[in-house]
């Protein structure tokens, strides 16, 4: 069988509780899986930066023993590099230590090299060198509300960062604290949660304190964002000044995921979970729901998904790619990963029985992925070389680049 060369292929990065897996495909139907990388470390965040000459995969890594760090690969996972002094480090005087990197967000193509990170303890960071070194956002860190922000079940973190095309408007969501907005590129911040419920607080409509699980920006309408809340699905059309419910038509208003289309106005995806107290898909039937009218109506999408599923999908365990039609990907806490090449109309299972899936990201990357025997052997070799021992994993990036 000959090589089915294409100018582009797809990479799907799967961060789990016990390491990173990478999947490659030429058609988003057949996937080759390699891994684990960073065995026994959790990978709660991934960013695939496709703005440069070659794609860079950035991962937030956290070992229970050895702490958190950021590593990156410029060769799609063949080798990994970790900055010697650490990419994210709280400055002296803050009396804080990095616990976990929850979000890695490459900025727009017009701002090459800019990468944002959201972390635990609640903090936002910005890199201008492609994610090798980040600076703490002091405006948010020094915000007078900070002492009143709380911790969700997973920890107190800034987990969503959305930057508008001009770079002036930055929205951050944190659990718990809610949505904060900057109109000056991140210099100063104001809580923007009007309309978002915090039913678990004495005042269910506070200025801040909401447990917003995820926010995402509309692809085309400036100032329009969507939010999946700790009960409640919302939209704002005025840059966060007011949020309105768009939960009608969904089987449940609880969940963690909020995805938006890479180009098309009004299209977003959620993965409903039954309730705070019952964190399983409604009726044990896993489904993605998509709106094409900004939340006016929702379509259930479950073709190719299992009949029964009792695992939740976490906030960053879902992603879209930039292809046409857009690909939709998600993984469960039961270690299954699903991919759709048609915007969610149908799914295939990419992987199963992995550790809990914490994060997935997908991208279109240049280069040939192929299907002949020699390449199959190469893939197998990659699988073997990527299956690091725990010792190698801890040492995954010593002073210089090391083979993974």
């Amino acid at each position, binding site marked *: 069988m000959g090589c089915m060369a294409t100018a582009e292929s797809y990479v799907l990065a799967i961060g789990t509780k016990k390491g990173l897996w990478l999947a490659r495909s030429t058609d988003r139907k057949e996937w080759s899986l390699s891994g684990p990388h960073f065995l026994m470390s959790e990978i709660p965040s991934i960013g695939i930066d496709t703005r440069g000459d070659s794609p860079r995969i950035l991962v937030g890594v956290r070992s229970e023993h050895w702490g958190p760090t950021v590593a990156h690969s410029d060769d799609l996972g063949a080798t990994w590099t970790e900055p010697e002094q650490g990419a994210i480090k709280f400055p002296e005087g803050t009396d804080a230590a990095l616990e976990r990197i929850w979000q890695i967000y490459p900025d727009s193509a017009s701002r090459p090299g800019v990468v944002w990170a959201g972390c635990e303890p609640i903090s936002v960071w910005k890199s201008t060198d492609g994610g090798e070194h980040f600076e703490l956002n002091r405006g948010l860190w020094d915000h007078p509300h900070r002492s009143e922000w709380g911790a969700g079940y997973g920890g107190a973190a800034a987990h969503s960062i959305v930057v508008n095309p001009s770079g002036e408007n930055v929205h951050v969501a944190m659990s718990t604290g809610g949505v904060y907005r900057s109109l000056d590129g991140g210099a100063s911040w104001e809580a923007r949660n009007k309309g978002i419920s915090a039913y678990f607080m004495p005042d269910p409509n506070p200025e801040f304190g909401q447990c917003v699980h995820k926010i995402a920006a509309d692809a085309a309408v400036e100032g329009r964002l969507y939010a999946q809340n700790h009960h409640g699905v919302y939209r704002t059309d005025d840059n966060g000044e007011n949020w309105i419910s768009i939960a009608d038509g969904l089987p449940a208003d609880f969940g963690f995921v909020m995805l938006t289309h890479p180009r098309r106005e009004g299209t977003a995806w959620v993965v409903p979970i039954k309730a705070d107290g019952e964190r399983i898909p409604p009726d044990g039937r896993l489904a993605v729901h998509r709106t094409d009218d900004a939340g006016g109506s929702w379509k259930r999408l479950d073709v190719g998904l299992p009949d029964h599923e009792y695992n939740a999908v976490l906030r960053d365990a879902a992603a879209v790619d930039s292809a046409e039609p857009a690909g939709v990907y998600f993984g469960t806490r039961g270690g299954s990963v699903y991919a759709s090449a048609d915007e969610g109309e149908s799914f295939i299972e990419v992987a199963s029985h992995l550790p809990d899936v914490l994060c997935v990201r997908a991208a279109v990357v240049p280069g040939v992925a192929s299907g002949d025997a020699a390449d199959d052997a190469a893939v197998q070799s990659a699988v073997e070389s990527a299956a690091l021992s725990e*010792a190698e994993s801890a040492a995954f990036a010593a002073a210089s680049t090391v083979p993974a």
Partner: protein
Amino acid sequence: MAEITVVLPSVLQPLAGGQSCLTTPADGAVTVESLLDAVTGDYPVLARRLRDETGSLRRFVNIYVGGEEVRRLKGLETEVAAGQEVLIIQSVAGG
């Protein structure tokens, strides 16, 4: 001059150039904190695996001096005598 030896677990040895032990000369007693500063000075990634940026020992990293885990002694202020051996061992954690 006497030395103090720090024994690394195998999992961390690649971060110290493959060495299983790191040594530093010592005239007299030094604290665990200054000992770690001395032996990890050339290995910043190893240093970050052991302590966070506030200088605190990571929760599941145990350091033994004279057979006692330093948290039961004086923590990083525990003194290590010249000639003594210090063990770094990861605790049982995870699932």
